[in-house]
């Protein structure tokens, strides 16, 4: 039984110098057999397990993670949450997630620090202006809050932006989604892990999948570094390593894994109280609660699993940021890192059954998966439990690459991929 976090538990534990907090989740050895196994203990995988247990009464399940909880892309992203996508299918998917975000801290009894500080996307040329206006209209038709801002309104909303007309990338306008914002990425993984564990889900860390055992066209189990685990349902949520797992099952996916970089500055006093994304110049910036500027850069164009990106990618992003925010010219960068993102040709995710019975893939989130974490988990759990997709993720099936029904969403991260 999990103790509830509250102001009273905080006071009680303060009196014992915070030395007696209950463990947030257990560290079990794998059982011989599970009803279902989720491969990948990031936010999406843990959320999948949480909703399988909570909404579909599947409690005899496990999450296997090759590293530690939240040590992959969940802890490497820039934590932006928004749902202002162009196409109907994407709008449905991402806004489903955003609605869950709005009540997630209460639901999990874990503060994920969801902050609806707004996300602003800037337009720097006439085509940007047309595209962003079109997207604003599409969003509103889908019931998603969106407004188009003039240059003056952009300046008013975020005064530190340089809106001078003579800069290299002048700001011609922008869009604003007020319900969008950020959340604490680690807390999302920890909150879902704690919630899933409380319902009996086994979270097995330091357990790498080495093979997928098939009997004809059905899954029979997985080989791991902690031995064979028998199961009829395997949900793979392995982000950049999805193709590696797919190869074990003899499948090919339409994915390419590439390094995506981000960086944070030294902490400073509050200076930017929203998230600003700039499509054309590929730079986005927000400020964490610790005071660091959180800056997202772009992907390299070659396949790599090395978690290192090229220096010129960071340089290009910082050039653009300094032009847009001259006030940051003397900021020092503290840390820089890379994560491996799995990118689909249409820049939309795959939440799908496969040609192998009992094998499901949740991948292809590319550069923008964090925002979808709760919705992705909920819909993937539905897909696994019912062996059928939910209507919100039906369009994101693997077969769309055969039928041609792509969800061509290159606005996925509001940046050119």
């Amino acid at each position, binding site marked *: 039984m999990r103790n509830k976090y509250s102001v009273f538990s905080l006071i009680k534990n303060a009196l014992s110098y915070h030395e007696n907090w209950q463990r947030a989740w257990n560290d079990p050895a794998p059982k011989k057999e599970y009803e279902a196994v989720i491969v990948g203990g990031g936010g999406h995988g843990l959320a999948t397990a949480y909703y399988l247990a909570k909404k579909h009464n599947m409690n005899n399940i496990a999450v296997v993670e090759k590293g530690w909880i939240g040590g992959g892309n969940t802890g490497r992203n820039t934590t932006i949450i928004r749902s202002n996508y162009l196409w109907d299918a994407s709008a449905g998917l991402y806004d489903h997630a955003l609605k869950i975000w709005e009540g997630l801290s209460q639901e999990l009894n874990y503060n994920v620090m969801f902050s609806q500080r707004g996300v602003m996307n800037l337009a720097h040329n006439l085509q940007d202006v047309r595209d962003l206006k079109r997207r604003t209209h599409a969003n509103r038709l889908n019931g998603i809050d969106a407004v188009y801002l003039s240059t003056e309104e952009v300046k008013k909303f975020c005064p530190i932006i340089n809106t001078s007309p003579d800069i290299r990338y002048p700001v011609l306008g922008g869009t604003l989604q007020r319900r969008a914002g950020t959340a604490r990425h680690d807390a999302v993984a920890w909150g879902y892990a704690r919630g899933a564990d409380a319902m009996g889900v086994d979270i097995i860390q330091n357990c790498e999948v080495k093979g997928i055992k098939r009997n004809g066209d059905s899954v029979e189990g997985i080989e791991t570094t902690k031995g064979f685990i028998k199961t009829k349902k395997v949900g793979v949520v392995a982000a950049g390593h999805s*193709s590696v797992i797919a*190869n074990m099952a003899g499948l090919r996916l339409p994915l*390419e*894994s590439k390094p995506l970089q981000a960086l944070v500055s030294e902490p400073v006093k509050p200076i930017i109280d929203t998230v600003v994304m700039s499509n054309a110049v590929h730079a986005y910036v927000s400020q964490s609660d610790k005071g660091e500027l959180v800056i997202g850069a772009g992907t*390299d164009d070659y*396949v*790599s699993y090395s978690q290192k990106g090229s220096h*010129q990618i960071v340089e290009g992003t910082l050039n653009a940021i300094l032009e847009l925010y001259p006030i940051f010219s003397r900021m020092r960068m503290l840390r820089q890192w890379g994560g491996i993102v799995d990118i689909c*040709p249409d820049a939309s995710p795959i939440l799908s059954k496969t040609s192998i019975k009992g094998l499901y893939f949740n991948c292809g989130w590319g550069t923008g998966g964090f925002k979808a974490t709760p919705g992705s988990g909920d819909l993937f759990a539905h897909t696994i439990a019912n062996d059928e997709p939910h209507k919100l993720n039906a369009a994101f099936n693997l077969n769309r690459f055969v039928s041609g029904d792509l969800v061509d969403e290159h606005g996925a991260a509001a940046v050119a991929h």
Partner: protein
Amino acid sequence: MFLINCPYCGERDQQEFKAGGEAHIERPKQPTELSDDEWAEYLFMRKNIKGVQFERWNHAHGCRKWFNMVRDTSNDEIKAIYKMGEKPPSQ
């Protein structure tokens, strides 16, 4: 970031090059007779290997010629470079 030994220009910064994806994907000889599955396989499905992968590169900001590369994608180490039309080296 790494150095690439262009077979025409010599060693240059990777920044001068454009990655062209998986190598040795043959264009279908009879496109009109392809099924949708075969088209999907040709257009979209990729090996995306973690480890030694064969790929195409273009010296975009140099001689603009295409060539092939054998590279370990787990650490970005280049194993071999060979010209278009040449047989890939055996590992």
